[in-house]
């Protein structure tokens, strides 16, 4: 049987015509509005309270809609956006260093290796400016200079300083801003908050998204909830690899369940492997910790020139060190984009020049920065990151260089959305990392926070009006056949998990699945490896459904049961990721196909054949169906990316 079949291309992305600078204005002008008095009568479910979902729910509540907000943590403030460290981009040009909306747009399209949609990215760059204003007004304590104005730093893939930050806790501060705005709406009665609830299915009525099936994680109760539109803001799926920088609960369930109900899943194989994470210390490892990329502003990456050099870092003289990023990429040096930095680290480790346990690490050295700027200045910038590193490894980066290694960090793929952020199911909108929209095959640092807040504060609240203004929203109740069916399917699945009573834990399967994905669908992918991975995944999935052991009952807090559902969905996603990676025989961004490289080992794109978004339709018992959205570039010239 074929691994996939091909269906019709995607004809319409709803992006307005005309000069790119005016498209967002055009769309906003054309979008129908909902009269303020009628907004109260329209209900929107928002799944997720991260930057995307939190900002969307707050803004929709402010606009007067009735919002029902869901998250699986015990409080909306704990969404994984909280962990973002480095910063958020915006084309403010406060540095007067030549930045502009156009430059941010250009950098993002180029950084994404020309696999994103120009109209969307341009809008993102335009809106970026408003985000900073909004956050400052809410009291987000960004870093400031002595004059009282906002400070900036530079980030990978850019030659201007456009990243706003709050020490190493930018995500936390931005999320608390959105969370506080959300709680203000809870108090105002426009937002109903449901924490510790997990969405387990989407309810589609007459072709439209009208509700969700949720499980109360404390009581185990399974209920249905309805609305006129559903927004998924459920984050990324990096945890398919088991080890990643994501939080333990991050999952694909919300988007995957929607995919099974008809939403196309775009570019699932585009995952980002972050170059600066703390290396794994042993088999017990349950997650990996990121060390912000901002460290590459001042830290220098190196390995010994000699293979298997046994000496500690401080005994290796300067001329026996290879600062390989500075050597290979003289114009960007340590600030090359993530995909490039990660692969370069893998290459030097593959050559046997890696450091630390198992040779799976490279040095990130601050000695020069400390000598140049002084201990205090370095401390002020990176203090909390250094502490975090020391807590985990027991080593002080002020004295010995950090050891870092790449780890799965972000997923550019996600549910396909049009210019309005609407999926292929009418009434189902997708924002933040959960959608595929703006980052192409590689996301630039500090651009996910920007995208999450752009989607949630500014884009969705405009585009969803158009949908809510036009629809016919006959009320749906829990007796509706579509609701009954979705709910009983969820119940059956839960009962099935609990009744298998096998002899392997959920984690043991998840770990093994993650290993397969890392080995064959990680930093380098090949035809042979991907085919093998698909076989392995299928075998392991079959074993999972036969041998998994889920203790306890479905009637109360049961964390093993929660995990089982998430891992079951990861199995299905993993297969689609491998099929997507297999079909895309070019290399681009984070997707590096061993068969497609330049003579000096750089990713080689194939624009002739692959300048499209791969949007996959769930096939049920049949293989998935590929729909292509052709990408055209009118404003940014297609070039081979070069950071040399």
């Amino acid at each position, binding site marked *: 049987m074929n691994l996939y079949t091909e269906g019709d291309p995607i004809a319409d992305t709803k992006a307005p015509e005309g000069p790119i600078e005016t498209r967002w204005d055009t769309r906003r002008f054309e979008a129908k509005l909902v009269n303020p008095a009628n907004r109260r009568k329209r209900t929107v479910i928002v799944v997720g309270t991260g930057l995307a979902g939190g900002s969307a729910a707050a*803004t929709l509540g402010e606009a007067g809609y009735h919002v029902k907000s869901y998250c699986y*943590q*015990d*409080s*909306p*403030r*704990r969404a*994984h956006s*909280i*962990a973002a460290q480095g910063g958020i981009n915006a084309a*403010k040009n*406060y540095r007067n260093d030549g930045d502009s909306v156009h430059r941010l747009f250009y950098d993002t399209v180029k950084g994404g290796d020309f696999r994103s949609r120009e109209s969307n990215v341009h809008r993102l760059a335009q809106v970026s400016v408003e985000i900073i*204003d*909004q*956050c*400052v*007004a*809410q*009291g987000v*304590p*960004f*870093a*400031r200079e*002595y004059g*009282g*104005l*906002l400070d900036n730093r530079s980030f990978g893939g850019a030659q201007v300083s456009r990243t706003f930050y*709050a020490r190493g*806790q930018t995500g*936390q501060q931005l999320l*608390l801003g959105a969370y*506080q*705005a959300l*709680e*203000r709406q809870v108090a105002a009665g426009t937002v109903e908050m449901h*924490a510790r609830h997990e969405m387990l299915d989407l309810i589609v009525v007459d072709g439209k998204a009208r509700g969700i099936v949720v499980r109360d994680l404390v009581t185990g109760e399974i209920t249905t909830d309805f609305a006129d539109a559903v927004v998924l803001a459920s984050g990324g799926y990096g945890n398919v690899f088991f080890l990643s920088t994501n*939080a*333990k609960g991050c999952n694909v369930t919300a988007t995957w369940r929607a995919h099974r109900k008809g939403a196309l899943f775009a570019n699932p194989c585009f995952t980002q492997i972050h170059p600066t994470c703390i290396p794994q*210390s*042993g088999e*017990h*490892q*349950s*997650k990996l*910790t990121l060390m912000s990329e901002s460290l590459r502003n001042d830290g220098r990456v190196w390995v010994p020139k000699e293979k298997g050099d046994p000496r500690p870092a401080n005994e290796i003289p300067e001329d026996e060190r290879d600062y390989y990023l500075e050597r290979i990429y003289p114009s960007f040096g340590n600030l090359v984009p993530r995909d490039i930095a990660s692969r370069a680290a893998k290459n030097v480790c593959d050559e046997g020049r890696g450091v630390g346990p198992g040779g799976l690490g490279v040095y990130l050295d601050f000695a020069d920065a400390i000598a140049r700027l002084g201990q205090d200045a370095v401390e002020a910038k990176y203090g909390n990151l250094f502490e*975090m590193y020391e*807590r985990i490894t*027991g080593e002080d980066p002020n004295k010995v260089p950090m050891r870092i290694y790449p780890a799965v960090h972000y997923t550019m793929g996600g549910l396909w959305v049009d210019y309005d952020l609407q999926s292929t199911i009418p009434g189902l909108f997708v924002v933040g990392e959960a959608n595929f929209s703006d980052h192409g095959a590689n996301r630039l640092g500090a651009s996910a926070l920007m995208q999450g807040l752009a989607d949630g504060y*500014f884009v969705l*609240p405009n585009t969803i009006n158009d949908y809510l203004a036009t629809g016919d929203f006959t009320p749906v109740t829990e007796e509706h056949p579509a609701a009954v069916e979705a709910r009983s399917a969820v119940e059956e699945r839960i009962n099935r998990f609990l009744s298998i009573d096998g002899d392997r*834990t959920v*984690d*043991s399967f998840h770990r093994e699945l993650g290993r397969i994905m890392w080995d064959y669908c990680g930093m380098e992918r090949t035809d042979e490896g991907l085919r093998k991975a698909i076989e392995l995944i299928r075998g392991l999935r079959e074993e999972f459904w036969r041998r998994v*052991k889920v*203790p*306890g009952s479905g009637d*109360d*807090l049961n*964390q*093993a049961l929660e995990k089982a559902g998430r891992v079951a969905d990861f199995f299905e996603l993993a297969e689609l990721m491998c099929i997507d990676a297999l079909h895309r025989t070019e290399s681009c961004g984070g997707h590096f196909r061993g068969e497609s490289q330049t003579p000096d080992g750089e990713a080689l794109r194939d624009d002739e054949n692959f300048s499209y978004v791969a949007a996959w339709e769930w096939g049920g018992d049949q293989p998935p169906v590929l729909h292509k959205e052709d990408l055209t570039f009118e404003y940014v010239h297609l070039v081979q990316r070069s950071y040399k």
Partner: protein
Amino acid sequence: MNLTLRIWRQHGPEEKGRMVKYRVEDVSPDMSFLEMLDMLNEELTLAGDEPVAFDHDCREGICGMCSLMINGSAHGPERATTTCQLHMRHFNDGDTIDIEPWRARAFPVVKDLVVDRSSFDRIIQAGGYISAPTGSAPDAHATPVPKADADAAFEAATCIGCGACVAACPNGSGMLFTAAKVTHLGLLPQGQPERDERVLNMIHAHDDAGFGGCTNTGECHEVCPKGIPLASIGRLNRDFLKASRSISR
């Protein structure tokens, strides 16, 4: 190393709990505390027992979801460290470790080591924000903020809302948590218009939720993983007094 764990097991909010003893063997010093519990749970599951429920998510000390009283101290023996960031290298072979949930009137136990901290969200709902509806903001540089104020506001804003302060306080007070937010917003020019009302409403919500009062014990600051300064409570009290006077006037 080999350890004895005594863990609080409680099936549900209404049920009685008790300490139960478990052995864990071959614990690596490089494991985090939660990885050690993961290991125990894997063993319990395979042995047909119910694993221990505990809250956690980011496992990097920032989401505030993890908790645990470890040998009677909130987040365990290391200063400025959340339970998820605590590593087993700080324990010795043969140790017996007591593991209990946060205990406070405002944080009822849900199951085993999991408690309900939604009372914190209610304090924020009462006024822990600046009213700035989306789209209403002036340019970010319209109001410069002195660096010292911005830095102090940031320091207070780093609170992760974990509740260790409440668990450590003999009165079960949530004053450090409340003070951190009042300080963060009250130091910024944007936070001035609502300053008086904010502090009054947040304190009411704090008291209504069943948190106790502050008697300056200072344990909250000692266990706080983010080192929120104790002085912020003084600031809260000053703001509260000032606001009470100006509003009653």
